[in-house]
């Protein structure tokens, strides 16, 4: 696979779909959440309005270079993830720029946006942001511990880092999905997944009243707009990655959307049930059950 200019419009199209799916998914999820609380809840298209509103605000100020660049980093991180990942299996057009790297790249590229965001929030000068970042980073790195084990398990199993190949290995019936071929790894990954979605019980990072929503405290209007854009893209990127690695990938857009939705719902369901963890509690939690599960996964692979 090499780069051809025609890939650019296709990639943008894929990105556009993902973006919209992401926004609608956000709305839907909130709607479902409201219905569970017996409210009507927001309109499903509310995220679009919010986005437009944020871009349409007039005031604009910046705390400095990194503050300005933070949303750019953040969104580049999200978009980059999508761009480096094949979206639809066996589709030439929606393989994006996945020739540049493999799953390892995705794993590490996830932090690109996080870092930029953290830097920008840091330059904002609000101590609350810094506290939020400290929590967020601690928690994310903890959540990655089982995640790495789960990923390793997949890599070991398929002997490849290439997402395309990993998906290929899961083709031919749902029983070939990693979910079924390696349920332990999938379970581990799903536990880790909770930690990276910033939802309850792992949402102390954004504690709204304690540290007025933490890292993004100072971001407003267009900066917030860019960040919100990423809020649509980034979770999608993560879910798509999971879909690819553990749930057989997707051979068509509807399949991808459905799988993503279900996966997304997993964190929502858990979040509506469980109360919030303190940061160190969540770190300890990740270092307990998911870790043990992950270690067993690897042990089974190595000696089983």
């Amino acid at each position, binding site marked *: 696979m090499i780069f051809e200019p025609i890939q650019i419009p296709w990639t943008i199209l894929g990105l556009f779909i993902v973006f919209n799916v992401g926004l609608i998914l956000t709305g839907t999820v909130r709607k479902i959440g409201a219905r569970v609380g017996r409210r009507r809840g927001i309109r499903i298209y509310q995220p679009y309005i919010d986005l437009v509103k944020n871009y349409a605000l007039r005031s604009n100020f910046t705390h400095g270079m990194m503050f300005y660049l933070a949303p750019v980093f953040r969104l580049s991180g999200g978009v980059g993830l999508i761009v480096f990942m094949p979206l639809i299996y066996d589709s030439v057009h929606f393989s994006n720029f996945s020739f540049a790297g493999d799953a390892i790249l995705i794993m590490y590229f996830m932090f690109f946006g996080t870092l930029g965001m953290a830097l920008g929030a840091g330059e904002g000068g609000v101590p609350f942001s810094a506290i939020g*970042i400290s929590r967020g980073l601690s928690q994310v790195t903890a959540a990655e511990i089982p995640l790495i084990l789960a990923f390793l398990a997949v890599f070991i199993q398929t002997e490849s880092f290439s997402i395309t190949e990993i998906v290929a290995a899961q083709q031919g019936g749902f029983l070939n999905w990693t979910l079924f071929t390696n349920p332990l790894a999938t379970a581990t990954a799903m536990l880790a997944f909770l930690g990276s979605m910033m939802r309850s019980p792992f949402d102390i990072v954004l504690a709204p009243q304690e540290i007025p929503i933490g890292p993004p405290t100072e971001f407003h209007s267009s900066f917030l707009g860019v960040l919100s854009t990423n809020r649509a893209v980034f979770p999608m990127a993560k879910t798509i990655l999971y879909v690819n690695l553990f749930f057989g990938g997707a051979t068509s857009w509807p399949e991808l959307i459905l799988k993503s939705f279900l996966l997304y719902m997993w964190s929502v369901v858990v979040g509506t049930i469980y109360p919030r963890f303190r940061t160190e509690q969540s*770190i300890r939690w990740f270092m307990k059950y998911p870790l043990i599960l992950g270690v067993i996964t690897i042990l089974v692979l190595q000696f089983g």
Partner: protein
Amino acid sequence: MVNLILINPIYIIGIGLGTAFLLGFFKKGKSVAWALMLAALAVMTYISFTWLWSFIFNGQLPEQVYTAGFKPPFSINLLMGKSEAFFTFLISFVGFLGGIYLFDKLKEQGTHAISVYLILIMGLNGIVMTRDIFNLFVFLEIASIATAGLIVLTPDIKAFSAGFKYMIASGLISGFLLIGIIFAYYFGGTLNIDFLIQADLLAVKGGVFAVFLIIIALLLELKPFPANGWGIDAYEASPAGINAVISAASAGAVYYVLSKVLPIADAKWYTVTAVVGMITFLGSNLMGIKQADAKRMLGYSSVGQVGLLLVFLGLSKQLGINFEFIVFGIIISHYLAKAGLFWLAGIVKTGKLKEWGILRRKPVLVFFMGTFIFALLGLPPFPSFFAKWTLVMTLSAAGMNLWVGLILLGSLVEAIYLFRWLGYTVKLDDNKELSLSTPLYKTIPVWVFGLLTYYIGYLSSTMVPGGSSLSMFYIPLAFVGVLFIVDKFLPVLIKNTVSIAAMAYYGWYYMADLTEFRMLFAIIFIGGGIITLIAGYAKNGKRIGFYPFAMMMYAGLAGLLLSENILQFFISWELMTLGSYILILRGKKSMPHALSYMLFSLGGAFLILAGLGLAYASSGANSISLDILKNVNQYSGLIYAFLAVGFMTKTAAIGLHIWLPGAHAEAESDVSPMVSAILLKAGMFGLVVLMLSMGSQSLGGVSLPYLLGWLGAITAILGNIMAVFQEDAKRLLAYSSVGQLGYVVFAMAFMSHLGWLTALAFALNHFVFKALLFLAIGGVVMRTKTKTMYEMGGLIKRMPFSFISVLIGIIALSGLPPLTGFAGKWLSYNAVIEKGWYFQGFLVSIAGLVAFLYCFRIIHVIFLGQPKDKFKNIKEAPLPMLIAQYILIGAIMLFSIMPNMVLKPVGDFLIQYFPDGALQWQGGTAISRLGRWSGVAIMNITMGIFGIIFVWLLFISRKAVKVKPFNIFYSGEAPSRPELTHFGYNFFAPYKKAVGFLVQPLVTRFWYGLADILHSISDLVRRLYNGNGQTYAFYVIIFMVVFSFFTIGG
């Protein structure tokens, strides 16, 4: 060679004695008496010198001197052989210089003291030359009485009590010697040593008693531990000038006597001697740790050194042909260094070690002090180094590994207090109330011995086996020497330029044709050296003491790469250690850290030495080529372990890492990158050499690379977690280095193509970004004058360029694509899956995540957040430092875009060592069995996306107003002070709560505990020396009785 007229050696005694008697006429003219004494000593020295000269250059044969016109054994005869000439020369020479040094003391005490001094030297000469055992006794008595007299040259109560104790003990000892002699006469029928040897006393019933008494008494004269309190007290009480002579001359003389007399006994006695020596060496050095008084400490050290000589003597049969060279090296070093140090002690006057800071008023003397200490401890290029080297090689070849271990252990203990002392001198306050006494007559002897140390070092280097290969060090060391000489006169600008030019030239001329690994490391060492030196332009003034040692370190590093045999390799290793030690010591608060650095380095070096010795012995090829590591026949696991652990003291593997954070953090801002980014790679290079030569070995059934892999992984994770919790920016980076080098060791342990590629990529990357980070943070620290991060904050506004450096540095460090650090991560995953070391790989991956935490912390707490009041007008880091940083940034960018530029050639030459699993390159894309990675594509795509979004944001928020730090949402309040609004202290508090248990300072506690135990033992054991002369006498008797049980049997 020139023929010198030989003068009958009896004149040494005649002139000494005659002049001493003559001095009786000069009761008034003290200066004349002093001059006469010097003249006599000069003549005595000259006589010995003529003999020594003839023995060395003219093939002179040993000559017997008969007295009274009769032949031995019936009359007393003297012998002048090569070693006699050598020893008498040493004695008279130090006597001469010591006489000069003692000018004021001798003059104060008058003619009597002068003649006593002269007689002491004469007596020592007599001890060396005489071949008659009773005559020997007489000369011993002369020497010991003269010593007892000179102890009280400064007549105070301490001196007299010490002198009295000395006399009690030495009186007892000589009494026993006398009994031994008379019984030897009874059983042997003669007093002549040569005939006694022939008489074979041990064959006669009861002869063993005579032999026992003679030898034990002579051993006791050498002040064996613990029956040596009397000697130690004497060292403390007597004037330093006298100590110099006692330590340098009499120890050598009495030692020589023992070697002369020992042949009357059998092999068992050689062993006894060696054991006594070893106990003394270990015990005295252990005791030295707890000393606070310079002279007493040196006393312990002297006694210890004599113990070491005894060990050699005891092992002389095993040392074989190398015996002479080893003894020569150790004795000459001890002689020069101990005399020099005692003289310095006299110049400083104060006894307390902690007041030695005043010596800094005379930098040259500090330089010589360092010289002497290094010489004493056997560091190159001093004679004792070559002796120790030969010793270890020889003993190893003889299979006496326990002895090697104990000798190295004792040396390490000795290093503890000597280096601590040096640290005090270089770093502690210069107490203005104290004065330094530096008349010319006191400094000249120090100069002479200091310079001689270097010259003899050179001589020894030519004598050691393989010494001809050492010429490679001449040019760099000559350059270092020139730098030393001009150091005081030239400004930084010139020295820096010259150094850079010299390094560039050296690199170009000598190292351009290196290949493979060596080339890679040459780039790191020399290239890195030049870049860090560029940053040195930021310094003003003269920076005395920096350039010579920096160049010495680089000379060592270059030497490592150029070395072809283990001797060159080891010398380079030590040179590097030495240079870097001083560099680290230069930091403001670095005293304890430099000490622990030196101790760990020395410990590591000794392990390496032991390992090389074993390898030398085990290969059996009698060759010192580096290739012997490939032909190791036995002990291969042990050798591997020794060398690996030795090298890992430099790479600071967990457990051996505690020196690193302090050393790197407290060093100057441009030294930190040198020691962290560059120096650590020396350890890695050592591992490269080791692993390529020996492959993988196992010890006790465990594969050592496997262990290394675990060790590396654990180091990586723990190092990084520790870094997360640091409040000190440089300490954070230092711990990060620990972790990063853990990756390297981990990756090397794979022993596979990808593993090594990973390791080398890591190494190169770590060099670039750690140098960058240390330089950037160093620049910040230079400006803010603090290393504590939470005291800073918001510096991005004042130091944007430094910020960018740090930003690039941390992105590279944390391995985020698109920058170069990702290369290492990607490769390591490949290697991990291929090798199947999943858990280790997992640990390392976690370590990478954790790295992300501290990376953010360092940039956030320093550059982001709230700027503080006092940094309002702070300036950007100096331009030279920025230039150096931006060169490194350029390198990072280049590697990021074109990783194939470096990795492909590296992979190509790795194929010959590890043919399987090589990467395939398609242009800039690396393809492994498992995945692919295209640096250039990642970079372009990321930049493209970033650019587009940036332009979009720029467009929609084009009217953004720039606001000030306090324009933040603070729950409706306005922030009061920046200090209260900057979140930086204990940044990852929750993380600490959760995983803090992992970084309990267990290792630190272990080493500190060890140090504590050592100190406690030292403190406990030194209670033996309760200051009571009777007790000392009691120990002497006990020593004798106990040994009689052991040797003769109950």
